[in-house]
């Protein structure tokens, strides 16, 4: 009498060995890689977000009275506000790509943990946002004639933390908004209140660093940013499966 468990594995036609299903990390990577491949193929969203960021920086420049406010006071705020809005452009399309042709069904039917779908997309969004920043930050230094060179490492760190926070919340809301009637309006409306602590912390830290103030002053803000990232990456990962119809 054949062993029952062996039998189960061998039930006719099994091309899949159940022990080789992708784990959380691998599935996350697969989804992220797929999203980035799509983005790389079309490039439109990245390009639009980049152009938007540069345009925004330019518009702020012309709305600014240099005799009233010094560049060093203005630049941090402009940088991080534009960061938020260009990030939103990238987030908008995050789940849109799954809606066309109902590709989301195939993702949900796949034998991967639901969280991997969220984490994979969030990772792809992170790279997207970081990519825009790589160009936007030097652009700020250029347009506003602000010396960002000597604090670039700290700035990179802040950018990473801020991007993490934005992407954690934005990816989740993107998943939700795409199923509603007001998707383009809802995503910014829901996300922006959540972006406020991020923008505040990032801008305040940046301006302190720029003004050459001791690092200890920036610490309380960084703590808020770190705490935000920790709480919301966790909370949004846990919340994602609840947004699925199951």
């Amino acid at each position, binding site marked *: 009498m054949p062993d029952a468990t062996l039998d189960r594995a061998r039930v006719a036609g099994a091309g899949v060995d159940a022990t080789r299903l992708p784990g959380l990390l691998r599935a996350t990577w697969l989804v992220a890689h797929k999203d980035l491949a799509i983005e790389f193929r079309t490039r439109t969203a990245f390009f639009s977000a980049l152009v938007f960021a540069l345009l925004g920086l330019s518009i702020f420049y012309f709305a600014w009275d240099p005799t009233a406010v010094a560049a060093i006071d203005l630049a941090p705020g402009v940088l991080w506000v534009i960061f938020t809005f260009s990030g939103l452009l990238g987030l908008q399309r995050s789940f849109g790509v799954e809606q066309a042709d109902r590709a989301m069904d195939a993702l949900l039917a796949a034998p991967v943990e639901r969280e991997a779908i969220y984490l994979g997309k969030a990772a792809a969004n992170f790279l997207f946002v970081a990519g825009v920043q790589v160009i936007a930050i030097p652009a700020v230094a250029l347009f506003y004639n602000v010396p960002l060179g000597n604090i670039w490492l700290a700035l990179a760190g802040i950018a990473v933390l801020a991007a993490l926070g934005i992407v954690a919340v934005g990816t989740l809301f993107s998943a939700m908004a795409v199923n509603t009637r007001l998707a383009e309006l*809802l995503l910014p409306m829901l996300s922006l209140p959540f972006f406020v602590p991020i923008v505040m912390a990032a801008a305040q830290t940046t301006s302190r660093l720029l003004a050459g103030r001791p690092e200890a002053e920036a610490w309380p803000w960084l703590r*808020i940013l770190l705490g935000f990232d920790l709480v919301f990456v966790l909370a*949004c990962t846990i919340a994602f499966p609840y947004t699925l119809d199951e």
Partner: protein
Amino acid sequence: MTTGTTGRDDAVRIAGARRAPRALMDSWILVAALAVIAAYVRVIWFTPTEATQGLAQKIYYLHLPAALNAYLAFGVVFVTSIVYLWLREERADRVAEASAEVGLLFTTVVLTTGPIWGKPIWGTWWTWDARLTLTLFLWFIYAGYIVLRGAIVEPSLRARYSAVLGILGALLIPFIHMSVYLFRTLHPMPIVLKPSAPSLPPEMLHTLMFSFAAFVLVYLALVRARYRLSVERARVEELEASLEGGR
């Protein structure tokens, strides 16, 4: 069953036929309204006027209880959101919806009375006072919650998404609080005169508590009415659906 009229008319007629119309004057709302009127009478005629701020300070008895109830309402949204995701109990979702709408109302009251009080005292309509700012963000979260609900037709999807937002919004509040307070300590604003709770003379304290109790009654009455409204609506939709199915 007629095919000429729409299913909806039939459903509404059936729903309405079984109950007497009552709407506005149910007992809870009546009691709450009386409590508020009593509170006002007490505020205006039976409470001493504050020395430095004068009559404007009296709006504080409206402002603070409204603020506390706005936060209470949000706490209820938070708890019922968790209950809904855990138990998938429809009633929890209805309470959350009702509480959010009433909460939005109270938050609006806070945001409008704040400046009315502030102008004579601070000389300006708006100041990024820590509490006021926090309330402003509470308003944004409520507004987002209600717009989200309005954008989804399917009831279980709407409940799930709202619950997620309710929970995440509650997690956001401490971060806004921390950010705003950190901002304020580093950017000191002009000193403002604010009555602080411990040093309030007893009559003012009692008036405040009375006002607070009245507002809690208003909250409960409004939430109850709104809850009943959503039950009726759900019933109409169900009847509609079954009428359409029967054709």
